[in-house]
């Protein structure tokens, strides 16, 4: 028995997504990075083959292949374009609250379009005050005239300028101890007073759009609420903790596989002292370390995703996977660059991009420090061998 084995359908999914990625994404990935352009038009094609809604049940137009299936898609996309990987990851992150907590009307209205690629989703939680201070959010939603009026600003929001629908958390009151009560809202891009603001110029994960969202007296109907009033913290944290971070982990597994493949290719092709450098033991040791990082990240990531598919708690396992995979991707891409010598810093090769993408993956969805705090809390309170 294998500790972790993909099903026949999951293996077919990987093959299918790989074929698509190699034809439609790989040839353009460097250009998207160079120009920092998000290939929005590709969302329809990806929707057509089922990537956009891979984990959404078939009844809502999805593929019904769960979170392991989703991780496979993100790994395959990110093997060539982690920038597009995070755009897709965030699209999934916007879908999840509707799927898990939305009304049946919201599911029927939005999910089929999200799955087909007709609409792009996003999730907006982080504010200038900090993403990790989740309950300290200042964006305010007030009840007025049977609906809601929202004011505030979100920042570092992936898909900020391309999402047709954004799921957004805002303060809707305080509890008896004076702590913020948050709620989750669904906002269509056409909503008056809802505008994308500043667009960030990022080091890595270029080819995805990251920016501000500004809310000025945005009036929403009562049914724009996703889930119950006051459930925003739970909905937001669950999405980020189990879907967002899991996605970042899968993206870094893709980067790590890219490192293995590039290292092997270069080591076999580069001739020094009359033979390929793959014959040199110093190079072999580096290849072994890169491979180990890939295999370990892969196991952690897919194990966490399989827990999610089984409906088991997984925020600690996801945090572990995210912490390891993102840090390992930074280290492995640096190792791959070292192995390549001068060629490693030439942009004709994708390894420099891998390093930039890996570095940008660390703060996305929570920094390594925050992941360690989560893991430490879990370990100190409930670790059992």
């Amino acid at each position, binding site marked *: 028995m294998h500790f972790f084995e993909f099903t*026949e*359908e999951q293996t*077919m*999914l990987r*093959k*299918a997504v790989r*074929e*698509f990625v190699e*034809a439609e994404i790989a040839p353009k990935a460097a250009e998207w990075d160079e120009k920092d352009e998000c290939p929005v038009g590709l969302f329809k094609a990806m929707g*057509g*083959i*089922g*990537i956009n809604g*891979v984990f959404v049940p*078939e009844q809502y137009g999805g*593929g*019904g*292949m769960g979170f392991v*299936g989703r991780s496979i898609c993100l790994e395959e996309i990110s093997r060539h374009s982690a920038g597009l990987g995070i755009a897709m990851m965030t699209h999934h992150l916007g879908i999840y609250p509707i799927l898990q907590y939305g009304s049946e009307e919201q599911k029927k209205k939005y999910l089929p379009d999200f799955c087909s690629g007709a609409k792009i989703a996003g999730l907006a939680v982080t504010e200038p005050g900090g993403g990790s201070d989740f309950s300290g959010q200042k964006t305010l939603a007030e009840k007025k005239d049977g609906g809601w009026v929202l004011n505030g600003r979100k920042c570092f929001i992936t898909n900020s300028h391309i999402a047709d629908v954004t799921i957004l958390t805002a303060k809707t009151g305080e509890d008896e101890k004076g702590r913020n009560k948050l709620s989750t809202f669904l906002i269509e891009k056409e909503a008056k007073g809802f505008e994308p603001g500043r667009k960030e110029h990022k080091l890595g994960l270029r080819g995805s759009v990251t920016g501000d969202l500004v809310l000025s007296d945005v009036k929403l109907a009562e049914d724009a609420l996703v889930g119950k009033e006051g459930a925003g913290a739970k909905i937001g944290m669950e999405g980020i903790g189990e879907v967002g971070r899991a996605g970042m982990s899968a993206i870094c597994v893709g980067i790590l596989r890219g490192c293995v493949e590039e290292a092997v290719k270069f080591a076999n092709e580069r001739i020094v002292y009359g033979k390929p450098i793959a014959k040199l033991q110093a190079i072999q040791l580096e290849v072994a370390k890169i491979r180990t990082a890939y295999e370990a990240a892969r196991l952690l990531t897919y194990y966490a995703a399989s827990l999610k598919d089984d409906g088991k708690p997984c925020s600690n396992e996801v945090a572990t996977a995210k912490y390891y995979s993102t840090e390992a991707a930074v280290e492995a891409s640096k190792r791959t660059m070292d192995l390549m010598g001068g060629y490693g810093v030439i942009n004709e090769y994708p390894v420099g991009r891998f390093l930039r993408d890996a570095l940008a993956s660390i703060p996305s969805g929570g920094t390594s420090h925050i992941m360690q705090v989560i893991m430490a809390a879990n370990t100190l309170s409930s670790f059992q061998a």
Partner: protein
Amino acid sequence: MTYNIAVCVKPVPDPKHYDKVTIDPVRKTITRTGIPTLLNPVDKNALEAALQLREQYTGTVTAISMAPPDAGEILREALAIGADEAYLLSDRAFGGADTLATSYTLFHGLKKLEAAKGYRFDFVLCGCESADGATAQVSSQLGEWLGYPHLWNVFSLQEVDSKTFSIKTKLENGYMEWRAQAPLVLGVSRELNKPRFTSVMGIMKAKNKPLQVWGREDLPEAKDEFLGLKGSPTQPGEIFTPDMKRSGKVLAGTPEEIAGRIVTILRANGVVVGG
């Protein structure tokens, strides 16, 4: 109009691993152990043509392959891409087949299917050649066995009226245009269409589509002497890996002397120098 279409597909070694392909010097066959297989790329064009016909009209698409047992994987892929059902003809008795024995086996598989379903296939579509053997013979041979008109290297297929199709086939310096009516066997080229990608939804649907394996006993009408190695008149001649070794030689002397010696060496190796 309803069209019942059979698509012949073949597993081939993944071109990314061609560097690992070796030749068995005794059996003179390609050794593929450990090399992943793919659905022959141009067979996907044949499948795409079948799916487009089914979508434009109505009908059925049946994928069929003669291959080792692990070829179930590529038939499952054909189902995921959109075929309605799939049949794998697999038996040791079929092993070692050349194109003639392969087409004969496929012919009997198709005849058995037609008898079981009570209809005749209107189209039998194949890729014009396989990525590994590239003999480009099976579609024409299949047409002969079936007794159907057959065309090879098809790059355009357009309906003229409810019965007649305009079909264009590639030639070295142009193309030929044909008018033909079903039943037809067509060997299609890559230029015919752009195959669709396998979708997640297709993969999930493929789980519940029939994939049947038929062995020697399922084709009782086939004769032993036409099957497998016994039924294969093709005898490969010498097969070898060319020696691509290079060597350098330093020539000393004046430029004129060196040039003269280079010309001598080139001539000795069969290179025509200076007319």
